[in-house]
């Protein structure tokens, strides 16, 4: 069953399409990654899926949540769905929690938004949730204020709040980027486990290829607001077809670089909003660009379960 479907989702800020015809489909239990650098539009895509776009952004296209069309819902209608059908964990744990309220109470509030629970019952459930996100001494932590917790602990609280009402979809936007490296691995494992235990769908957004390859089965690569490539994670990362994906992989593969040699980068830098080239968004940085790239390359199938938007892709490994 499809729990989240984006159909040609477009988000305009002013006249600029910062998300340009993005389509993706998540079924129950799917783990999909959305890879892109800052400025690719990946966060706005996620926010659109929850109806949390800023006032200045206007969405277009189709969004379906568990079969229900949601793109034109009012705030009150959205409030019924958020937390209950779809939840999100954001990047910055230090500011994600109300600083003057104890964390247990914040989780309990999240529970009581969609369930008819007494305050005591909700708090007890909150403590249990904190235990499930592997916080030691959950009862003690529940009585603490956010400033008394570390970043990793706060992020776990946010995770607990997100999972409180067992949503069908969990969207994570760079949930571990702001955390220490040692904490990251544990957090990722926790997210994977909790999601699979509950049979939830996961949309994982990141710029970190290693993290995505760890957690996701499928990946979509985003650049300039568009999906440029998608497919199973091991195949896309093992044999990338789009020059941008190839460039990303080469750049992140530090171990492969000979000592003393220059690190591999993608030439140029990510253009600002509204400054992407016409036609293929990547062509001004692509070393495989052709004159024909002035036409927007369509996102077409490339093999049984891959999509590709490039007319001059990296040759297949087997050709």
């Amino acid at each position, binding site marked *: 069953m499809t729990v989240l479907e984006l159909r040609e989702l477009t988000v305009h800020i002013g006249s600029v399409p910062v998300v340009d015809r993005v389509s993706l489909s998540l079924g129950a239990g799917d783990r999909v990654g959305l890879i892109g650098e800052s400025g690719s539009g990946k966060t706005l895509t996620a926010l659109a899926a929850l109806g949390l776009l800023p006032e200045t952004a206007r969405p277009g296209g189709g969004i379906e949540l568990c079969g229900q069309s949601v793109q034109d819902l009012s705030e009150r209608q959205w409030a019924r769905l958020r*937390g209950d059908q779809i939840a999100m964990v954001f990047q910055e744990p230090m500011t994600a929690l109300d600083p003057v309220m104890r964390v247990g109470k914040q989780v309990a509030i999240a529970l009581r938004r969609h369930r008819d629970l007494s305050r005591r019952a909700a708090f007890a459930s909150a403590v249990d949730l904190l235990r499930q996100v592997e916080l030691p001494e959950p009862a003690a932590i529940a009585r603490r204020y956010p400033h008394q917790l570390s970043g990793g602990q706060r992020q776990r609280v946010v995770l607990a709040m*997100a999972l409180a009402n067992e949503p069908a979809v969990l969207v994570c936007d760079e949930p571990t980027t702001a955390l220490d490296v040692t904490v990251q691995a544990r957090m990722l494992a926790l997210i994977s486990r909790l999601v699979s235990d509950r049979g939830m769908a996961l949309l994982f957004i990141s710029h970190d290829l290693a993290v995505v390859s760890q957690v996701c089965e499928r990946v979509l690569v985003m650049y300039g607001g568009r999906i440029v490539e998608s497919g199973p994670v091991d195949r896309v990362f093992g044999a990338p077809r789009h020059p941008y994906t190839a460039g990303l992989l080469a750049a992140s593969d530090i171990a492969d670089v000979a000592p003393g040699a220059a690190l591999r980068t993608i030439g140029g830098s990510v253009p600002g909003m509204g400054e992407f080239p016409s036609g293929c968004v990547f062509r001004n940085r692509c070393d495989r660009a052709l004159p024909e790239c002035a036409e927007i390359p369509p996102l077409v199938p490339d093999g049984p379960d891959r999509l590709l938007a490039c007319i001059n892709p990296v040759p297949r490994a087997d050709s």
Partner: protein
Amino acid sequence: MALNLARRLGFLVLTLAVASVVIFAVCAWIPGDPATTLLGTQATPAAVHQLRHQLGTDRPLTSQYGSWIKSLFTGDLGTSYVTKLQVWPQIQPRLGVTFSLVLVGMVLALLIAVPVGIFAAVRHRQVSGVVVSGLSQIGLALPAFWIGILLAFVFSVKLDILPPGGYVSFRQDPVEWLRHLVLPGISLALVQGAVLSRYVRGAVLDVMNEDYIRTARAGGATFAKALWRHGLRNAAIPVVTVLGLQLATLLIGAIVIESVFTMPGLGLMLLQAVGNRDLVLVEGTVMILVAAVLVLNFLVDLLYLLIDPRLRSSR
């Protein structure tokens, strides 16, 4: 936290002490010798000298200050040279008037400022929000005593539904107490409310953009509910810090408004004392007022500590 409290308390005491020195010093350096004033220009030097000794004004300043402070602790604010009456019994009944006015003024100001500020913040991009914000700009430019005069004109002179002045104590008749405080209270509150509303607006605007509002929305709260549940308490913090300052301004404003509505409070008495060059009375009253300002600020600081848990544990 106890250390924090002790430190603040200590500073309060220090400030009170310094303030008392300043007040005493200013009054002492003011030209005019009470003895000569009392006896007149025809008095003989011997008589003046004797009166000075009687009053104690021939002692060195430090010793005069010392006895003044000592008597303060026993609740004796001295005896006026002019009226021959004790100072504190004169002040005491009037305290109720002034503080009632400050209380009513503050409550009304908050009642005005909070909804107006929230409205202006939530609708800051729309015309209604901008208009409201503009109105608060106008409101704080107006002299409060002028508004008092105009209100008295409309409601007392023209409509005759509210008394144009005076005061009735709460114990005597609560309804009349309130009726006499409505116009003066509103005069104070309109201006202070306008000032406060700008701070409320700023605080709510800041809070609206905070991440935890987004987290709450992501969990199923509407924007309004998230603001109510999480935003208001956080927005209250900067507003409470302003309240302290505003209380002092309110106290001073109350003194002026008392004149407008001829209320028997500290204000009128103070002004009369100035007219009579009654320094002892002025000294005592100003000391009381300054002490009130300092203590009020101290209490607001405490309130601030209570509201923001981040201040409690960390140093």
